[in-house]
């Protein structure tokens, strides 16, 4: 039944010679990597704690080759892991030991930028930022801006439903992609969505965006382009207390303002960032808020004035408004450099991605502070405050025995608390392999079974990215044995072993 595909995959063994013969018929030598030294760079994605060497890496250059690769793998029962730039943070592109990596890196052409229709048609290996750069001469841009936008690809963005610092106002990938062209594991091509505002039938586009390469391989993406606002300005506010900062976020929303961006950093994060970036952050503040307003100059002035009033009323100890584009970018530079800055003060860090209702922020942060003591590890917090998406950065040292295990347990506890507070284990990074156990906490048996059935409706063979995103019920049963919440035994219908 539903979890059969998974169990089958656990015992997959591939006839490597037959696979290589098959792939050689499809791909010329420069498109097929087989030697260990060539495969090594593909052994992990942005989540480096999990690694696996694939049997082969395919770098097709045409859709016809993608079709033939998938048909070959399908006929031989070989798992396929699609990959963009490999910047993902949840191990979604981690290879399968008995499978291939299907890299879309050479699908790097922008096929069309249509000024009149305000859309762009691109191949999946095109970088996120490249789309906005191509649209810039027309005063247009592609709104979702994940922090990795300089490197991450549109195909990867589709797989993860990527967000960014502006998604509160401009939406996620799912709100900005109009159409995708997909090859199924059987090698059949289909398109979902359209250049019109909707398409006939079920909204399969919404289903496939964020499906982590489990349902099909994307070979073309059509995105919506939006007019670039004339002006953007950012307000930076300091708070002596994180709870006050959290309340200020709610107060902004309650005042009827949807800012273009609304971000928070705690003291540990600003302390890591400031020496590195010199953004001018208030080092005495327990938390700072960055609130961006965009639009016409009059509109921005109006909104900034309203935001400033709200922040003052919420008890901000200091408020500064960017007075130039250079200053705006400097304020943001600190936030955008938070991950590398933390990377400078610790040998390794582990980035979490829980989403919580905004009003539970203070609760979450004090719980994280307690966990720092419990696990003996430090944690810096950056927060897409506007949409409740928290990125705790747990600092550890992979070379110290036991450090990673503690970091992982720390992270798991944060994610499970996110669910308990009414949120989600992942806001924008995806489940991948990383949060597969926490899926068992967020969802119960019927939903997990439904996800497996959805997967099977697209990929009956279970060969697309097996073992990711949706756990098997047996995995949940094993995990459930370790994590009993409030005395509830999860998955009581399953045998325990």
């Amino acid at each position, binding site marked *: 039944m539903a979890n059969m595909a998974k169990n089958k995959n656990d015992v997959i063994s591939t006839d490597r010679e037959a696979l290589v013969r098959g792939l050689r018929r499809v791909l010329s030598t420069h498109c097929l990597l087989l030697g260990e030294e060539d495969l090594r760079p593909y052994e992990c994605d942005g989540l480096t704690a999990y690694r696996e060497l694939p049997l082969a890496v395919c770098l097709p250059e045409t859709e016809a080759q993608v079709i033939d690769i998938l048909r070959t793998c399908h006929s031989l029962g070989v798992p396929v892991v699609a990959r963009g730039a490999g910047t993902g943070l949840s191990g979604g592109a981690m290879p399968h030991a008995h499978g291939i990596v299907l890299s879309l890196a050479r699908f790097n052409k922008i096929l069309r930028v249509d*000024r009149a229709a305000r859309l762009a048609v691109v191949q999946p290996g095109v970088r996120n930022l490249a789309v906005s750069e191509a649209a810039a001469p027309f005063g247009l841009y592609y709104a979702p801006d994940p922090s990795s936008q300089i490197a991450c690809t549109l195909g990867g963005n589709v797989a993860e439903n990527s967000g960014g610092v502006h998604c509160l106002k401009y939406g996620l990938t799912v709100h900005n992609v109009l159409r995708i062209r997909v090859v199924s594991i059987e090698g059949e091509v289909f398109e979902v969505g*359209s250049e019109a*505002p909707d398409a006939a039938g079920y909204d399969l586009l919404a289903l496939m965006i964020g499906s982590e390469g489990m349902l099909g391989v994307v070979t073309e993406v059509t995105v919506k382009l939006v007019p670039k606002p004339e002006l953007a300005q950012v307000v930076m506010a300091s708070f002596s207390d994180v709870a006050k900062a959290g309340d200020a976020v709610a107060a902004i929303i309650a005042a009827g303002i949807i800012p273009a961006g609304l971000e928070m950093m705690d003291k540990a994060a600003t302390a890591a960032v400031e020496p590195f970036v010199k953004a001018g952050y208030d080092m005495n503040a327990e938390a700072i808020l960055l609130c961006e307003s965009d639009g016409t100059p009059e509109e921005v002035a109006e909104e900034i004035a309203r935001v400033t009033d709200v922040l003052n009323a919420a008890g901000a100890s200091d408020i500064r408004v960017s007075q130039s584009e250079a200053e705006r970018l400097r304020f943001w530079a600190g936030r955008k450099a938070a991950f590398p800055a933390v990377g400078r003060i610790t040998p390794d860090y582990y980035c979490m991605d829980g989403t919580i209702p905004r009003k539970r922020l203070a609760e979450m942060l004090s719980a994280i502070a307690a966990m720092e003591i419990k696990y003996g590890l430090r944690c810096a917090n950056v927060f897409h405050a506007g949409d409740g998406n928290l990125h705790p950065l747990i600092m550890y040292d992979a070379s110290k025995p036991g450090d990673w295990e503690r970091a992982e347990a720390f992270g798991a506890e944060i994610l499970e608390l996110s669910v308990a507070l009414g949120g*989600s284990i992942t*806001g924008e990074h995806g489940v991948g392999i990383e949060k597969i156990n926490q899926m068992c906490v967020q969802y119960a048996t019927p939903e997990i079974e439904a996800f497996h059935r959805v997967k099977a*409706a*697209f990929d009956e063979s279970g060969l697309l990215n097996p073992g990711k995103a949706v756990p098997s019920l047996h995995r949940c049963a094993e995990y459930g044995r370790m994590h009993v919440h409030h005395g509830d035994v999860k998955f009581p219908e399953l045998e325990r072993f």
Partner: protein
Amino acid sequence: MLMAHSLDDIVAAVRNAAAEHAPLRIRGAGSKDFYGGLLAGEVLNVSAHRGIIAYEPTELYITAKGGTPLAEIEAALAEKGQMLAFEPPHFSGGDAGPAGASVGSAGATVGGCVAAGLSGPRRQQAGAVRDFVLGVKLVDGTGQVLNFGGQVMKNVAGYDVSRVIAGSLGTLGVIAEATLKVLPKPVSETTLVFDCDAAEAIRRLNEWGGLPLPISASFWHDGQLWLRLSGARAAVEGATGKLGGNVAVNPEKHWNSIREQTHPAFAASPLWRLALPSNVPSPELEGLRAIEWGGALRWYAGEVDGDHAAVRAAAAPLGGHATLYRAPESLRCLEGAFTPLPPALLALHRRLKKTFDPQGILNPGRLYAEF
């Protein structure tokens, strides 16, 4: 008719129907009975399963039982200065409502709104129903209760099934609860009116669409183009100065007549809905009645004995699709309300339908005759 007052009632009704292989016709207020294909099976009325479960203005969401009237939700939101930004049409009650409105009911329900997936004039700025669905509690075709999504804006754990439910016309499950993202109402709104023909309207709308203007709705009919600006006061005033046109007095009634399709432009049967890339020229069709959504939505009056295939054939090469929106049920069943799917997509639809409703008892034929 089966009347469900609770989640348990819905589950029991679906389980019984599944055991007897008997189709169910899920119904809220019946305000969208006119829309889609066949209405088959015993009516499962969920309008008594109603009530707002949670509304958190600062978290920007509302959760309500499927039978909750849209009017009740909108009243609660209005108290806090918020709205359903996709402006769903109710198609019930009020003056000269179109055929199918259910007399005596409390009006369109949120479950029906999500199931039908229809958005109103503000869709061009804010997005469609599916863009605002954060989560659903669904009773699938076996009577199983499934919770997808949640109450937070960002949630990529598991497949995004809740958005697929928008527009699925009840064929994948009974919507027992829905959580929708809500937004603050704009501070300021102004409506401008221009005299121009359809081609000029399409040209202007697309030109404006490429500029950072706060256009929240557009409507062309019979030589007049109506444009609504919404946003910060300064933004609306600035755009008004830039665009010219005549400022309309009390335009709310006008926009409501478009949202609810009580405007004479929609008084046609059959009425075709063509969703197209916004900038394509008008297809070679007679009977253009109205243009909305910045040019991307165009309404045509058809003929009962007309060449229906020709309408679909005109929309397809332009990159869009044509829906037989309002027409006698016999015609909708004969022609199919919705554009036929290519074989690969139809096969996927059937498999997806089967995963949620293995016996095919939920609203069979309402979306496509094949399932």
